[in-house]
């Protein structure tokens, strides 16, 4: 197996994740897309770890999984708050920063 095939798969997932973050209006879906991006990074880390035959990359992947759990918790709490206040989780309606 080549390193590149994993990296390209990760790049593809990353790009799809970016698309999801930018295109979807549903807050929950945006959070899911962020998970996609994080997974792409994890694949990269584990692949490099396999090439170097050390466990450091895997440990970083584990850290990312933990941090992702925290991120989802807080993110979903924010989406719930949004829903409670505005009865909508449409991100295009949140534009208080408009110039």
């Amino acid at each position, binding site marked *: *197996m*080549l*390193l*590149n*095939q*994993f*990296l390209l*798969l990760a*790049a593809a*997932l*990353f*790009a*799809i*994740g*970016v*698309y*999801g973050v*930018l*295109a*979807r*209006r549903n*807050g*929950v*879906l945006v959070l*899911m*897309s962020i998970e*996609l991006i994080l997974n792409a990074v*994890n*694949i990269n880390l*584990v692949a490099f*770890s*396999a*090439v170097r*035959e050390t*466990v*450091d990359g*895997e*440990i970083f*992947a*584990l*850290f990312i*999984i*933990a*941090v*992702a759990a*925290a*991120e*989802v*918790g*807080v993110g*979903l709490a*924010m*989406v*719930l*708050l949004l829903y409670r206040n505005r*009865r*909508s*989780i*449409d991100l*295009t309606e949140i534009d208080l920063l408009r110039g």
Partner: protein
Amino acid sequence: MTVPAALQGLDPLTGGDVVVAQNIAFGILSVVMVVAALRMVTTRNVVHAALYLVIVLAGAAGIFILLGAEFVGVTQVLVYIGAIVVLFLFGIMLTRGALGEDEEANTEKRRMATLVGVLVLVVTGGAVLDSFGDTAVNRSAPSLTAEIGDTIFSQYIVPFEAVSVLLLAALIGAIVVARTD
């Protein structure tokens, strides 16, 4: 940019049966993952999107095992599929009907997102192909869980503690943000 070299990754059938099997497994997994990921970001049903996410995450777990990182693979299944996706399903349930099904009205936004996504793919893919050529992954043996444990609790003890504090902070933060009062 040596594109052929990268594509060769899928067909060096010379390395014996194991390599062939691994490459076939990788091919199936990657196709399934990319398709599921694409469906996830395009489907209009949010619950379906969560299920597609499960497929992608399971595929990633498979990739980890393919790379000899069993512990990470198992953790991926436990934490991501077991916990985070359930969390997502709860989130979807609690915000049900919050959004009308008028997604296609926003074609301009999609065009922009597609543009950026393709740009990301081209640049990162190009960078990858440019940098690593035909470096091979030939791990002699799967990484040992004991070794991971040792390393976390010696070399990476400070980041580990930091992550545990972060989790606690996130827990408190989530409660404070989402409570009703």
